[in-house]
C-alpha cells in the first residue's frame, strides 16, 4: 500500500541576498495511511516550513515529496492548488475562517473550487454532514464572530473535511484555545483518526502531542527524533478527569 507521505532527502532553502537559510535539511520519512503524527520543535526548528511543504503551499528546493504516490515537487501553481483542494484539509492556529460568512458557507468553500461541479444543494448537504461530524450542525447559519474559539476551530475542521481529503494538516490547532477546548479539539481529531483519516499536526505543546500516535521532533531543520507515543492520552478520559477536578474545586 502506498504511504500517504513519502519524503526522500527533502530540502527547503531560502535565499535572501547572500545569506542562505536551510529551513529543512535532508528529511526523509514515511507516513502511512491512518497515522496521527505530531511534528514538534521550538520556533525556528523548521516545522512551519515543513508544514507548508507538506501542505503543498510551498515547493521543496531539493529531494522528493510523494503525496499519495504523486511527486508534487514538480507541479506548477495550479496543479498544487488542485492537490490542496482534493487531497489536503487545512486547520490553522488562527482558524482562518472568512468573517461575515456563515459557518456552512465557510465549509462549502473548498467545494466551490473543486472541479466536481456539485449543485448548490449537494454542496449544502455535504457541508452539513461535515458540520455534523464536528458537532456543529445546529450552528450552520452562525457567523464566525457569533461562535466561540473552539466552535470556530470545529468549523475550520469541518471545512478541512468537506472535500474528503486523505490528509488533514493542522498547524498549531490548539494554539489559541484554553485547555479544555484544546482537549475537545484533540477529541475531534482522535475521532476522525479512528475513522481512518491521516492527521499531521504541528505543535509545540508536549501534552497536546500526547494525544497523537507518533511524534517527530525537529531541530535546525532536521528530524532528530521519531518515536511512537506510549501512554497515549484519550481525550474523552482527560475531559472526564478535568471535569472531576473542577467538581473537586467546587466542593472544597
Amino acid at each position, binding site marked *: 500500500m502506498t504511504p500517504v507521505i513519502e519524503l526522500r532527502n527533502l530540502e527547503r532553502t531560502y535565499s535572501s541576498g547572500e545569506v542562505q537559510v536551510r529551513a529543512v535539511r535532508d528529511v526523509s520519512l514515511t507516513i502511512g495511511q491512518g497515522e496521527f503524527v505530531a511534528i514538534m520543535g521550538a520556533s525556528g526548528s523548521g516545522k512551519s516550513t515543513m508544514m*507548508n511543504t507538506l*501542505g503543498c*503551499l*510551498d515547493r521543496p528546493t531539493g529531494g522528493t515529496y510523494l503525496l499519495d504516490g504523486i511527486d508534487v515537487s514538480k507541479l506548477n*501553481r*495550479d496543479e498544487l*492548488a*488542485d492537490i*490542496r*483542494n*482534493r487531497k489536503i484539509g*487545512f486547520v*490553522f492556529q488562527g482558524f*482562518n*475562517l*472568512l468573517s*461575515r460568512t456563515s459557518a456552512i458557507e465557510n465549509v462549502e*468553500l*473548498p467545494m*466551490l*473550487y*473543486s472541479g466536481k*461541479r456539485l449543485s448548490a444543494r449537494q454542496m449544502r448537504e455535504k457541508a452539513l454532514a461535515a458540520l455534523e461530524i464536528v458537532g456543529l450542525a445546529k450552528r450552520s447559519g452562525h457567523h464566525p464572530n457569533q461562535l466561540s474559539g473552539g466552535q470556530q476551530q470545529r468549523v475550520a475542521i469541518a*471545512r478541512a473535511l468537506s*472535500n474528503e481529503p486523505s490528509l488533514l494538516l493542522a498547524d498549531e490547532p490548539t494554539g489559541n484555545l484554553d485547555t479544555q477546548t484544546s482537549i475537545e479539539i484533540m477529541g475531534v481529531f482522535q475521532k476522525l483518526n479512528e475513522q481512518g483519516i491521516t492527521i499531521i499536526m504541528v505543535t509545540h505543546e508536549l501534552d497536546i502531542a500526547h494525544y497523537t500516535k507518533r511524534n517527530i521532533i525537529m531541530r535546525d531543520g532536521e528530524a532528530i527524533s521519531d518515536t511512537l507515543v506510549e501512554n497515549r492520552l484519550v481525550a474523552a478520559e482527560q475531559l472526564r478527569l478535568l471535569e472531576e477536578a473542577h467538581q473537586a474545586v467546587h466542593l472544597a
Partner: protein
Amino acid sequence: MKLAATFLMALRALRRNKMRTVLTMLGIIIGVGAVIAMVAIGNGATSQVEDQIAALGQNVVLVFAGSVTSGGVRAGWGNAGTLKPRDADAIKREIPDAIAISPEVRTSCQISYASQNWFTSIIGEGPDYFTIRNWNFTEGTSFTDQDVRSSNKVCIIGATIQFQLFEDEDPLGKILRINGVPFTIVGVLESRGLSVQGQDQDDLVVLPYTSAMKRIMGVTNLRTINIEASSPDKIEVVQDQITDLLRQKHRIQEDHDDDFTIRNQQEFTKAATATSRILTILVVSIASVSLLVGGIGIMNIMLVSVTERTREIGIRMAVGAHGRDILLQFLIEATSLSSMGGVIGIVLGMGASKIISLTAQWPTRISPLSVLLSFMFSACVGIFFGFYPAKKAAALDPIEALRYE
C-alpha cells in the same frame, strides 16, 4: 469554479461595504448619466432639425435667379429677373428625372375677409408645390394646372390665416381679398408650426404663380423654381442637367458665370449632420473623461480591497483556488461595480432628460444605442480598471497571504 457562484460572491462583497460601493460607482453614474441626458438632448434637437428638413421635401433642388447689381448695390438672390416661367417649362420638358416642378414667386400683402384683415406672405406656386413639400390639406384640394394656365383667382390658405380671419367659419369657397383682388379659397393647409428659425410656417396664402405674377405683383420673372428629383442619387444629375439647360437657354458664354444658383436638400442635411457630429464628439469626449475618472476610482478601491482581503485570498488559495479563480472574483467585482453604476447612470440620465424636456421644453429623445453603448462601455471600464488589482490578487503567494495581518 462556477461563474454564477463567483457572481453571487462579488455581489455579497459589494453589499458588505454599501457606502464605499456607492461612492465608487458615483463617477460612473455621473459619467453615464451625463452621456445619456446629453445624447437625448442632442437627438431631440437633431430630430427636430430633421423634421424641418423633411418638411422642406425630399430630393428637392432649388433654382434661384441670380443676383442683380445696380449702381454698386447688390440685391441678393432671386432679384435679377433672369428666371422666367419658360425656364421652368423647359426643365419640365427636357429633364425626365425632375419629376415635380413648381415655379415660385413671393411677396407680402394685406389680405382681408369680411371685417377682418391681416398682413401675410403671398407665394405663387404650381400645383406640384404641395407634392414637393409633402404638404397635405385639412380641407379642400390644390388648385389645378388649368388654374395656372388661366391665372384663375383661386387661393389656398395656411392654418394661421384660417385662425386669424375665419375662426369658426368654414373658409372653403369664401372670397379672400388680396390687395383688394378677390380670390376664392379652394383649400386649407395642414399646420406645420414654427420653422427652425422660429418663423410661423402657416402664415401664408398660396396662389397659382401666374395669378400672383399678373394680378398681384405685376412681374414676369420668377424668384425660384422648386424641383423634385426622382431619387437622392439623381439629385446631382438633375442639377447638372439644369445648369446645362439654363446656360444654353440664357445664352451664357463659356467664360461667363451662371445667372442663377442651384441649391439642394443635401446641403441642408449636410449642415445638420455636421452639427450633430460636433455634438457627438463633444459628448464622447466628456463621456470618456468622466468614465476614465470613474475607472480610476474603481481601480483605487479595488486595490484597497485586495490589500484588505489578503488573508481571505490566502484562505481561498489554501483550500484550492487557482490564480484565475481569484482573478475572476475580483474582476467580476470590479465589473459589477461599474456596470451597476452604468445602469443607475442610465436610469438617472433618462430621468434627467425627462425633467429637462418637461421644464425647459426642449425636445429630448433617448437613443437605445446610447443606452446600450454606455452600458457596455461602463462594463468595459470595470474590466479594464479591475484587471490590474485582480491580477495583483491572483499573483499573491498563499503562504504570505495567510500570514498577512
